[in-house]
């Protein structure tokens, strides 16, 4: 971890790749861990055809999402970003709760507000849309990876 001039800590960006054969198709995943979120690319060929962003915060029950690039009639990237952002957010809350229990500090509430809890998740989904079953299996594979390697997201 590095400390910048103004005292904010900036975590180094890390990259994580994994692949899985889903319905006879080799699907590649590329994760870029950022400060306060991540970028996830999913595809079989190295093309960037869509990009969606979802943001979750403690103020919203459901993360807000928007499509940045691609076909607006296809909701797969934005809804996937939305769900992953929720998971990412909940994971960080769990981590945070553990941290607080560890510290047992009296000023937990101020500690809580000082901690940034907003999560930004970028998703680029580049698989054929004809198969919704594929999208479901792909999503489950991502969730599994998030559970196995929470430090990579």
């Amino acid at each position, binding site marked *: 971890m590095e400390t910048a*001039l103004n005292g904010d800590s*900036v975590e180094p960006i890390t990259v994580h790749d994994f692949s899985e054969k889903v319905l006879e198709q080799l699907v*590649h995943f*590329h994760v870029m861990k950022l*400060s306060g979120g991540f970028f996830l690319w999913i595809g*079989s060929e190295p093309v*960037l055809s869509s*990009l969606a962003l979802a943001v979750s915060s403690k103020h919203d029950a459901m993360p807000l999402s928007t499509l*940045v690039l691609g076909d607006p009639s296809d909701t797969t990237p934005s809804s996937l970003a939305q769900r992953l952002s929720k998971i990412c957010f909940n994971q960080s809350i769990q981590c945070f709760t553990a941290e607080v229990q560890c510290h047992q500090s009296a000023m937990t509430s101020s500690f809580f507000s000082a901690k940034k809890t907003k999560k930004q998740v970028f998703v680029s989904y580049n698989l054929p849309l004809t198969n919704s079953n594929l999208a479901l299996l792909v999503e489950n594979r991502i969730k599994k990876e998030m559970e196995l390697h929470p430090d990579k997201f």
Partner: protein
Amino acid sequence: MAPQPVIRSRQTEKSINGIPTQVVCTEFSNYIFIVLTQYGKIGTLVSITPDTRSGEISLPMFTTRVLLGKDEPLTHVYAKNVAMFVSQESGNRPVLLGLSLKDNSAETMKDVKDMIKACQVW
């Protein structure tokens, strides 16, 4: 054995005027994606697209578009300056640039461009 990743990316980190700066370049067949940050975030997302006009000898033209974040004139100027050469060197591919700098002065732009060059994936 795990299959080779299809996405190629390179990254570097350097301190510019005492501010830790990170660059991550990722290659796609239809885009070069560059994250240029002093916050560890994507920040403002800008696309830099070469205008395709055949048979023109004059300087190439580029269209910049802020896809996410504050749309300021300086953002367009900065994005064009740091990313134009990437598009030209990568066979006129459009560039997607995530820009979040504390210092976006012209003086440090050369250092920033050198960092991008060091992460050549195209």
